């Protein structure tokens, strides 16, 4: 909202500098998003009359203009064409410095000299108009040589662009902002000049107003204005509107806009000649009704919206024939619009239910200055004051204006005004500091609250403009916020609290950090790939799987929640291959999503209006995925990486067991599942990305084997499923151990790790078993390979004898044989 300093000064005395005011407004929560200084740099600009225009030889874009600015003829080169001899335009003479610091100097072009610059409104920062020169005759009766500031009676001004928060309906006006400033600065707040009805007849003798839906329209006032002459507004009204960024239209419309900006009450003027029965009635729209709004769009009314909780309710204004004139508080229809021939005006100033306006405005995609204010809540007591102000303003251009007595004023339901009780100590309990009764009274009364001091408690009744103040405990918080705000947040104390409960990370969070550290230590670059992908991305992994979709994606290729991070990582890697930097390990710890129908235990939660529905939500699965994209990488690298990670996490026994590829992304014959030996839980998969996919997405690295680890972090973090090594350490035996190598010709069906575990458990004397060689050779029987283990024997109590070692060795060999492994 743009508010000029001069307008604010109509309401409150302000002597502070622009910077000081900005700081005060910010501190009041009326955040200044920008400041425009008007009239700056216009001091040297004067009114000049066009005396001659002629072409310049060889130039078709510019002409030579002769002007008089009071000191005889001046020749100026000008590119605009929107003027004629006799017009008055602004001239920036040589030496003038325009807004933005542009200094005018003598310029020569095409053999002629230009002695200054004729200006457009935009060049002077007076409006956005850059169609041509600013023609002053349209605005005033210009005098040659007069300063432009004087000619247009522009007083240098400062315009604040203020962002008003959603809970401050009262601050969406010059008067509202002035009220905050007056209270903060302890100044009095001036009231605007208001007109009194002066008509001989009563309003009821001319017009009628009715409310049929009192829940939607809390108040409808209709003022009858006769003898209206539609024409331009006085200069000060135009300036005020322009300072707020609004275009002047006509004195009637301008007065309506001015009152809205000044007091916060939108009003709507109707041409009484086109309102059947001169009757305005507010009622609920009926199904099937349509309205063509001012923007030319035909709108179906009372149609339930798609939005949650939107029943399709619309409040409309109808005439005496029950014909819809407009969407109440949002936008009018064309039929009763003010025109040049309007002589009688029905001025509507009303209160509409904020939620109804909000829903209608959202459903119809219609936002207006009026709807913005109504949906936040306009002061229900403001209507007639606004009408009086409207008449006061319009009367300046229409002195003979007649405002019929006893304006029509019908009531519906308006929000109840609560009485908020601040109990003794409430303020201190909320803010950490007590405020004196004087300060409380000063602030709240300044804001228009009624304050009564009871025994211990303070009873506070908000003004009707403060529809944001609730009742009960919430209302207490609302009032206390007002106290804190006006007292200034910066004056409140600070205290760093402490409590006996320890802080810290959960085991899972610690593990997540640890895993992240380990993978980064092992050379992984941590990526962040998109959660939302395309159907085609999804199909790469799970073409037949039900997917979780976003209803309103920004783009169609960002509409599906990922079910795996592999696709995103492969694409990210491929992109880096294209950049020539693809020799890397890329990893990510993140969440993937499963549609509730694809899982046996969906997540149930409450939702819907009032949280009354039970909803099935997608199951979220945290995973760790690493791609191995260097030229020497493969499934083998991935397995080695896994073994380090597994050791660092402290897992007990996890078997790497070849398995069916869990999705199309994996290489069908180079994929293994990671199985916890004790619990049988699957921790994830290790292997390679399907080479066909690699060729498809990264043709430049097509022959490369892309290793992969894809871990289910939920399982890894769960000690019930992913068995931990004992946290109790074993001190190695002080007696020397004997190391024996055993090589078995083993059927491929026997898993090397299984054989290793069997060996380890074959004798109590086994300290460790390590696979150190796998040997394939044609000389070995079909479907076998040689597995060589280094076995370490030891005892806690003694040095093992040769016989004991031999005996243990024999046990191990027998164990191998039982599994089909033959000692070489």
């Amino acid at each position, binding site marked *: 909202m743009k508010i000029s300093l001069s307008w604010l000064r109509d309401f409150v005395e302000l002597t502070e500098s622009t910077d000081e005011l900005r700081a005060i407004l910010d501190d009041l929560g009326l955040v200044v998003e920008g400041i425009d200084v008007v009239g700056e740099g216009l001091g040297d600009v004067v009114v000049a009359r066009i005396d001659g225009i002629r072409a310049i030889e060889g130039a078709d874009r510019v002409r030579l203009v002769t002007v008089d600015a009071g000191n005889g003829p001046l020749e100026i080169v000008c590119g605009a064409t929107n003027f004629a001899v006799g017009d008055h335009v602004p001239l920036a003479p040589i030496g003038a410095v325009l807004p933005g610091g542009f200094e005018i100097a003598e310029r020569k072009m095409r053999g002629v000299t230009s002695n200054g610059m004729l200006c457009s409104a935009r060049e002077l920062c007076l409006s956005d108009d850059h169609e041509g020169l600013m023609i002053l005759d349209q605005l005033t009766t210009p005098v040659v040589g007069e300063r432009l500031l004087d000619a247009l009676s522009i007083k240098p001004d400062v315009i604040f662009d203020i962002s008003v928060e959603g809970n401050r309906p009262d601050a969406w006006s010059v008067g509202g902002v002035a009220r905050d400033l007056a209270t903060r600065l302890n100044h009095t707040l001036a009231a605007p000049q208001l007109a009194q009805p002066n008509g001989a007849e009563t309003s009821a003798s001319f017009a009628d107003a009715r409310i049929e839906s009192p829940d939607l329209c809390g108040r409808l006032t209709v003022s009858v204005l006769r003898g209206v002459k539609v024409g331009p507004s006085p200069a000060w009204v135009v300036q005020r509107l322009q300072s707020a960024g609004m275009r002047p239209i006509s004195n009637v419309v301008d007065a309506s806009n001015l009152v809205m900006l000044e007091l916060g009450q939108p009003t709507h003027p109707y041409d009484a000649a086109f309102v059947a029965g001169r009757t305005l009635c507010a009622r609920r729209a009926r199904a099937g009704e349509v309205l063509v709004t001012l923007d030319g769009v035909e709108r179906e009314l009372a149609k339930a919206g798609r939005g949650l909780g939107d029943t399709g309710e619309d409040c409309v204004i109808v005439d005496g024939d029950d014909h819809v004139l407009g969407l109440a508080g949002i936008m009018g229809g064309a039929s009763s619009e003010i025109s040049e021939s309007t002589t009688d005006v029905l001025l509507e100033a009303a209160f509409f239910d904020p939620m109804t306006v909000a829903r209608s405005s959202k459903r119809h995609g219609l936002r207006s200055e009026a709807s913005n204010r109504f949906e936040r809540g306009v002061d229900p007591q403001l209507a007639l004051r606004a009408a009086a102000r409207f008449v006061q303003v319009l009367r300046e251009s229409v002195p003979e204006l007649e405002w019929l007595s006893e304006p029509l004023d019908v009531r519906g339901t308006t929000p109840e005004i609560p009485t908020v009780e601040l109990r003794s100590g409430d303020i201190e309990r909320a803010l950490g500091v007590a405020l004196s009764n004087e300060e409380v009274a000063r602030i709240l009364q300044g804001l228009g609250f009624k304050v009564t001091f009871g025994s211990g408690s303070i009873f506070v009744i908000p003004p009707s403009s403060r529809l944001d103040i609730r009742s009960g405990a919430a209302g207490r918080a609302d009032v206390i916020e007002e106290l804190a705000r006006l007292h200034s947040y910066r004056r409140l104390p600070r205290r760093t609290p402490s409590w006996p*409960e320890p802080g810290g990370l959960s085991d899972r969070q610690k593990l997540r950090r640890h895993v992240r550290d380990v993978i980064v230590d092992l*050379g992984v670059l941590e990526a962040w790939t998109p959660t939302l992908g395309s159907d085609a991305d999804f199909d790469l992994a799970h073409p037949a799987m039900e997917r979780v979709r976003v209803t309103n994606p920004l783009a169609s290729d960002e509409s599906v929640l990922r079910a795996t991070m592999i696709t995103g990582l492969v694409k990210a890697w491929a992109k880096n291959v294209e950049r020539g930097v693809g020799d890397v390990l890329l990893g990510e710890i993140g969440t993937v999503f499963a549609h509730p129908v694809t899982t046996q235990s969906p997540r149930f939660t409450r*939702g*819907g209006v009032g949280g009354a529905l039970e909803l099935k939500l997608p199951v979220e699965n945290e995973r760790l995925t690493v791609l191995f994209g260097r030229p020497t990488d493969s*499934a083998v690298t991935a397995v080695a990486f896994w073994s380090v990670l597994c050791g660092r996490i402290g897992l007990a026994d996890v078997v790497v067991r070849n398995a069916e590829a869990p999705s199309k992304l994996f290489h069908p014959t180079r994929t293994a599942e990671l199985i916890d030996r004790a619990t049988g839980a699957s921790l994830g998969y290790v292997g390679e990305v399907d080479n066909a996919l690699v060729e498809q997405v990264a043709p430049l690295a097509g022959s490369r084997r892309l290793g992969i680890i894809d871990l289910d972090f939920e399982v890894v973090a769960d000690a019930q499923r992913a068995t931990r090594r004992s946290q109790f350490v074993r001190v190695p035996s002080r007696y020397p151990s004997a190391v024996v190598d055993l090589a078995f010709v083993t059927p491929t069906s026997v898993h090397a790790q299984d054989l290793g575990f069997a060996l380890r458990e074959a004798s109590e004397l086994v300290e460790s078993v390590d696979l150190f060689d796998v040997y394939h050779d044609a000389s070995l029987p079909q479907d076998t390979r040689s597995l060589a283990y280094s076995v370490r024997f030891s005892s806690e109590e003694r040095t093992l004898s040769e016989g004991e070692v031999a005996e243990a060795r024999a046990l191990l060999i027998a164990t191998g044989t039982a599994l089909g492994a033959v000692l070489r």
Partner: protein
Amino acid sequence: MTTSPLAQLAEQTDELLATIAAFESLDALRDAEPFVVGKRSILSTLQKSLGALEPEARRDAGAQLQGARRTVETALEARRHELARAARAQALEADRLDLGDVVVGAVSVPIGVGHSSLVASTQRQLEDVFVAMGFTVSDGPEVESDWYNFEALNIPPAHPARGLWDTFYVELGEPETVVLRTHTSPTQIHLMENAVATNALPVHSVMPGRCYRRDTPDARHLATFHQIEGLVVDRGITFADLAGVIETFTRAYFGPDVESRLRPAYFPFTEPSAEFEVTCTICRGEGCRTCSNTGWIELGGCGMLDPAVLEAVGIDGDEWSGFAFGFGIDRCAQMRHQIADMRALIENDVRFLRQFS
């Protein structure tokens, strides 16, 4: 009467089909293709011979020949597909590797320097600051119901305040009931509900996580971003505690010469509410373009828990009070590392990732 050039078409077609069925490799198929359906095939020869026919006869024969060609081509494609599958199956079989046989000690891999994600490391630094102040860390889901994301936070359905969040809705249940969380605040509600259910008040926790807003990405915003939220519910907690926590955090994270200040703001779930600002880290408070010459940079929102929120989760506001705050993790990273364009964060360019330690 001359015999039709197509008199033998059925037999010729069968012959071609037999040839196709006999291909044993993709190479053989590719080599023979011109003789089966290409320019040098019997089909092409027959096609040429049709030119001699009367127009009507030519039309009929052409259709007949076209049918035969389709049959042959279909068979060829089917065979090609079959052979490709067989070739792939054979290649995969040849490629088969028993990953249980990997001798880890014998694998040699190049050493490379890894790098943590900027967001992850920033999140960790922030968590560490709060953990040192006595906070726990809580995680929450990214897909939420409207109850947790909005209504329990005092943002009722169709309330204009919902417009403050550009929401992605998920196609599940009734329209607009399932959302990608637009902020980490729903995790607050889960925490408080759980604390009430398990009689585990007080709560002092921070909640980092990924959030989504339907907002076209630009240099300063991403549609996917990360927030960290803080929640304290305890006895005797006041606005002074909130301001103190913000102040302590600011100094711990940004440095002792960075200050914080609060200014009034509106959030439906807190009252009083505040926006918190910190000394501009670019100009150290002198005033520059980044801070619009104010010397301050807006970091996040905070406030005392609104009584309506306490009521929604069943906490007695006369016994307990609390505050919440939240701000962008990515934004902290952007401030600290002067990232000119946030979109670099999701491009995963190795040259970008390598810069972080």
